[in-house]
């Protein structure tokens, strides 16, 4: 009997082993993760060669160079003036049309939404200002009008609007790779005085210390305006602003890599 019991225990042990081991082995059916390469620090992008000084592009003060700027707005390309960060939402210049007017009123709100729509591929809202012109709807935007325009030209399109001036929301939108459209009061290298305007915000991160706007009056590839986050927040909330719009459609995928 003892021999039988021992044999039974042995077989039982084999069964227990049989039951657990295949599960362990089966877990590896999805291709086992490749050994992770040694972590190498990301090479710091080379700072863009300094452009020769050129005449001021607009009525505002001339752009200041890196250190001189002290966080104030500086004109630049898709990489921050110190070469540390690059735009989260780098919509190509070919997709960025200039602001126009419809029945005498500017369409900055709807041009900014056009940029976001192109970034997140919502084709119903492409060329939204031109759609307003053709439909005989005057420019000029505010949150309720955006609701009406989107109900007409993009029914079913999901979006958010916020007028609380809460910078957490800007960071949350950008963290997910989406393009925020924000109010902006000027006083930068393009505008000497106060303006009422909506632009896109392809970069904003209080940790890295940079914010960048993409202005639909100056859509060139070297006409982004970089500044310190605090400088941007003043301009976002200035003149009764603090309004942000964002589409909820997913952003484009990151470039593929192994």
């Amino acid at each position: 009997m003892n021999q039988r019991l021992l044999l039974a225990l042995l077989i039982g042990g084999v069964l227990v082993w049989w039951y657990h081991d295949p599960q362990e082995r089966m877990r590896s059916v999805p291709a086992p993760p490749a050994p992770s390469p040694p972590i190498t620090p990301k090479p710091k992008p080379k700072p863009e060669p300094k452009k020769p000084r050129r005449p001021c592009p607009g009525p505002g003060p001339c752009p200041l160079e890196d250190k001189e700027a002290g966080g104030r707005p500086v004109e630049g390309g898709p990489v921050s003036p110190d070469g540390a960060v690059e735009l989260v939402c780098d919509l190509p210049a070919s997709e960025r049309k200039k602001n126009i007017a419809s029945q005498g009123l500017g369409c900055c709100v709807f041009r900014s939404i056009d940029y976001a729509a192109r970034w997140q591929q919502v084709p119903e809202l492409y060329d939204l200002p031109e759609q307003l012109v053709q439909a005989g709807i005057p420019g000029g935007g505010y949150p309720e009008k955006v609701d009406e325009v989107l109900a007409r030209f993009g029914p079913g399109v999901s979006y958010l609007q916020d007028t609380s001036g809460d910078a957490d929301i800007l960071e949350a939108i950008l963290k997910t790779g989406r393009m925020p459209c924000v109010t902006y009061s000027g006083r930068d290298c393009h505008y000497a005085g106060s303006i009422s305007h909506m632009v896109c915000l392809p970069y904003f991160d209080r940790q890295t210390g940079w914010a960048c706007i993409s202005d639909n009056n100056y859509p060139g590839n070297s006409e982004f305006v970089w500044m310190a986050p605090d400088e941007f927040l003043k301009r976002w909330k200035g003149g009764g602003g603090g309004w942000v719009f964002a589409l909820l459609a997913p952003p484009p995928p990151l470039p593929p890599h192994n």
Partner: protein
Amino acid sequence: MRVMISLIVCLLAALPALAGYEWHTFPDDADQLSLWRDGRQLGNWRISTREYLPLVAPGTWGDPCPPPYPPPQDVIAPGKVELDGTINFGLERACLPAAGKHLLNGKEVSKDELLQALGPLRLTDDSQWPSLTIIGPEAARHKVLSDLQSSPFLAPWKDRLKVQDYAPDHWAVRDAGFVTTGQPTIYCQAPDGTVLHRQDEYRGPAALAEVLRQVDPHYQPEKDPDLNKGWTSIPWPLLISGVMLLFLLLGKDEKR
């Protein structure tokens, strides 16, 4: 008095020169205006580039140059100067709400709801979702998208993937390193862009579901139910061992 008269004379002299110019819009292209004089088209103004192209001969356009007659002011400069000197490029400041509001598809919600809620429209969570990108001709993309919406095989991933589809020449994929020649090419990428899977043709919803299962870090294949199999799904070594165990425990003892 003499000054007034000379001004009026100048104006009258200038009027005939300007009067013949007319800007016309295109019903099918809001980005262009055409300049006409005496029933003849002189050139076109492109709003998006702010360029005037003279029409040299039918079908032949000259190099960009300043237009002989200024385009409508509201087209070239959408900014309007307000009473306080602010240049307004298209905000109706009087209509901006004084108190802050959080709005989702036009309805007021809380900040948390704005950031986290509304089912699949989560703003904060999907940054960690994998991306599924479909690149190819429209019909081929449509088949995959349609299956993602309706196939029971793909239902578990409906709200756990960031899905985008593009024509091969779309700017988002054309020069970004993606293979665009598949029928269609399907990429599955980790949130950091790492390619977890790529295929260059669509093999149906079941095969795609299998791929998505395999790239899911929480996937445990042993938990897959197989509703077609009964006791026959028990592995044969397990079956034989079980029978032997039963035999040993319940069988008669020869010594007795």
